[in-house]
């Protein structure tokens, strides 16, 4: 018995909040899961609330990826223990001094939602280890009921994939019986998706967002919709003129990504990949989420898209970090992947504090070279 079950994740957050009331706030999410499970997040930092610069980290979107929720509970325990015990933390060769951790907790609020998809986790851990989606039941009209929406195709970003993308260009399905990538009946239809949206809305000063997954080690960043370009601001997911054209590589449509955002996103991705790699020598690649196919309705693109769709919303740099090589590694593999996620997240938190202090996001930065050959194409 090495992985946390959902009840344990829930209890762990309650225990941490009780033990460190000055440093964290338990946040009950507004929606229960389809099967009625309550959902909790924990906000950590000396200053907390909707106006505090925030890094939002989520995990457990895909049920079968068992490590990220455990890793997010672990990093909460580590950070709180380091702050109360006034000590630093080391993950493999990656060291964060007490002073660095204290600076993070002074300058940033870290909101952690370890298990977005509780029903899926319970089902995966007890019935079908390869289960990925949530557990929404949906009739198919021919007397059959299929279960589950892929939460990471359900966010409101180019959700209507048949309208937005070229035929066959996107990894998504409108068939409720698709075992992996069913998009759901409408954009953000799922209570689990709505909880993540609620966190971004509630903590309106969120500027960094990471969704932890597995199991090809790497850091993915904008966009998943198409290849990118920085010169034509009209080529965006919002422009119906390009409906039906998105998602094909090496053609005339590329998603707009402002050059300074691209530089900062690549810089942060590179630092995260480097620190995760340093933990145990397993190489984390990095690159845009658009690879073999486009993706619609994914959390990282949604987080970054919000300020394009509504200029009143804050700009959020969105990332997906995939850890390890297996969805359910054994105890040693789990521990290594947890350490990699912790190093990665604390590295991003350290950079976020620097960005807040010096507003470095407005400085020209040089994109670091991708690590090794495992860069996504």
């Amino acid at each position, binding site marked *: 018995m090495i992985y946390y079950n959902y009840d344990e994740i829930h209890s762990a957050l309650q225990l941490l909040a009780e033990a460190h009331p000055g440093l964290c706030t338990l946040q009950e999410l507004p929606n229960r899961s389809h099967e009625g499970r309550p959902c909790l997040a924990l906000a950590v930092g000396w200053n907390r609330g909707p106006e505090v610069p925030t890094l939002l980290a989520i995990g457990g979107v895909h049920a079968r990826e068992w490590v990220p929720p455990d890793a997010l509970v672990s990093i909460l325990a580590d950070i709180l223990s380091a702050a109360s015990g006034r000590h630093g933390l080391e993950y493999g060769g990656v060291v964060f001094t007490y002073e660095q951790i204290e600076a993070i907790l002074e300058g940033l609020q870290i909101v952690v939602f370890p298990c977005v998809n509780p029903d899926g986790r319970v089902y995966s851990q007890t019935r079908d280890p390869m289960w990925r989606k949530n557990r929404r039941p949906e009739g198919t009209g021919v007397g059959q009921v299929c279960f589950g929406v892929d939460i990471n195709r359900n966010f409101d970003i180019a959700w209507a994939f048949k309208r937005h993308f070229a035929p066959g260009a996107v990894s998504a399905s409108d068939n409720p019986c698709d075992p992996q990538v069913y998009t759901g009946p409408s954009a953000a239809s799922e209570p689990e998706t709505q909880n993540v949206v609620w966190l971004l809305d509630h903590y309106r000063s969120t500027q960094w967002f990471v969704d932890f997954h*597995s199991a090809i080690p790497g850091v993915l960043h904008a966009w998943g919709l198409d290849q990118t370009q920085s010169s034509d601001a009209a080529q965006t997911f919002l422009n119906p003129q390009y409906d039906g054209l998105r998602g094909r590589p090496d053609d005339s449509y590329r998603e707009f990504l402002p050059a300074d955002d691209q530089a900062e996103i690549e810089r942060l991705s590179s630092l995260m990949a480097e620190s995760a790699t340093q933990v145990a020598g397993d190489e984390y690649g990095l690159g845009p989420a658009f690879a073999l196919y486009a993706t619609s309705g994914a959390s990282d693109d949604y987080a970054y898209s919000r300020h394009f769709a509504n200029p009143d919303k804050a700009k959020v740099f969105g990332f997906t970090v995939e850890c390890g090589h297996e969805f359910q590694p054994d105890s040693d593999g789990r521990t290594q992947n947890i350490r990699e996620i912790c190093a990665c997240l604390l590295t991003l938190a350290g950079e976020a504090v620097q960005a807040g202090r010096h507003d470095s996001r407005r400085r020209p930065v040089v994109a670091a070279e991708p690590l090794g050959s495992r860069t996504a194409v």
Partner: protein
Amino acid sequence: MLWRVKVTADSQEDLRRYLEGSGADLGCRPMAFREAEGISIVLIADRETLDRLSARRSAGRRLVRLEALGDPKARTALCGSRNRFLKGERPRGYGERVDS
């Protein structure tokens, strides 16, 4: 029985054609990697999918079975139904303590 499988094609376009309708589980996000021998993806396949992919092999397309994913029962045994945190255990992390 499920296997992790590495599939390679000469071009991205051909890799997509190779996988189309194969029923392969492309994992979390369909990540492909440029390697010396072409464009590769690691995916999860059952026996039927493996057979379909094997039948479609042609010049420039390669299929390498990496390893079996193991018995599902063995993996569910890595989880339990007890709540250890109601029995006095406290959540702990895996960072080593560093004294400044």
